């Protein structure tokens, strides 16, 4: 096993080194895909991730939550107790020192997702590029994944819906959660929350490919100390936090 692991590590390292080789400025020997062509499947060469800088995240600002709701058609029913919630803002305060911080919490897109482990139908799955999704065509709404998730970031849709975004189909009887705006990402875009955070001038959310050593997110993670929430569970999260 350890031999296997080290071999894998070697392959990963050598691929990364190869990918980093540049023939001329801007031209790489192996192109690291960010916007893939429509007809090609996603690959594990890419691992989408997000870095949230809690020092830049403003308490009281909910632009990311609003943008998520608008993009994905959430909140149509207006029943706050049961409405689906893909991202939420959390305010934390250390009582002793009074140190306070604010952060958004959403699906952490684990490399080893417990929701996928427990799903009895295979509806909960992880795409090759690390995005954890629910296939609503297969989901039976049993909600095991909601119980298994350590971050409590999945929601059950209780009410029928009619006002969906054509690109984000959703309806009664299924579990759902943050998709990292997969319909945008597949076109080379960024999630709506990240865009809204940048538009508000906070720039607390950084989205990118964790596998690409040249990407802004990979560089940042290399430079500063970042935290995975409940790192003790060893789930290898796609979403990391800075300053917690």
């Amino acid at each position, binding site marked *: 096993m350890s031999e296997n692991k080290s071999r894998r590590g070697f392959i990963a390292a050598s691929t990364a080194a190869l990918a980093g080789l540049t023939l001329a400025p801007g031209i790489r020997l192996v192109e690291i895909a*960010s*916007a*893939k062509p*429509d*007809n*090609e*499947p*996603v690959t594990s060469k890419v691992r989408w991730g997000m870095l949230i800088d809690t020092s830049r995240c403003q308490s009281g600002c909910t632009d990311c939550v609003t943008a998520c709701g608008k*993009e994905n058609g959430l909140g149509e029913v207006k029943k706050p107790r049961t409405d689906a919630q893909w991202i939420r803002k959390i305010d934390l305060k250390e009582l002793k020192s009074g140190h306070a911080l604010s952060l958004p919490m959403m699906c952490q897109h684990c490399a080893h997702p417990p929701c996928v482990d427990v799903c009895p139908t295979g509806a909960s*799955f992880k*795409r*090759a*590029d690390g995005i954890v*999704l629910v*296939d*609503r*065509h297969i989901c039976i709404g049993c909600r095991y994944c909601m119980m298994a998730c350590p971050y409590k970031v999945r929601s059950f849709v209780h009410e*029928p*819906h009619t006002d*969906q*975004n*054509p*690109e984000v*189909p*959703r*309806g*009664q*009887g*299924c579990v759902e959660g943050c998709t990292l*705006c*997969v*319909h*945008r990402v*597949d*076109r*080379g*875009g*960024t999630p*709506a929350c990240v*865009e809204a955070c940048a538009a508000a001038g906070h720039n607390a959310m950084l*989205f*990118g490919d964790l596998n690409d050593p040249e990407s802004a997110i990979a560089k940042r993670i290399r430079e500063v100390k970042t935290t995975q929430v409940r790192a003790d569970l060893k789930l290898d999260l796609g979403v990391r936090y800075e300053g917690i």
Partner: protein
Amino acid sequence: MKAIVIAVLWGLTFAAAHAAEPGRTPLPAIAIEKPGQCVEPKELMRRDHMKLLQHQRDKTMHQGIRTKKHSLNECIACHAGQKTGTVLGKDGFCQSCHEYAAVKLDCWDCHQPKPGQKTAGAKP
């Protein structure tokens, strides 16, 4: 002999007139409001559109393949009624035929039956 021929001819005429009589046999309203070529031959689409859609559905969901050819959203964009703006309703392209064939349509529990604006999604 002559009487028999006349009778047969009369019978044929009656039968023909009867068949052409509207409203006796319920038929689905298949209104193609946007003329043009479908992505596949008509016969194939009538028989196998559900297979194409299901195949595309799995490829999109699990592999992120978002080609337009067999995409449900593209079907809707073309086949939604000009007036109603949807593929549902009494004469809607999907619903009228599915009602005729008594096949339950559950796509629309989740999918949007009206063509809508695509979201932008700027480059990172």
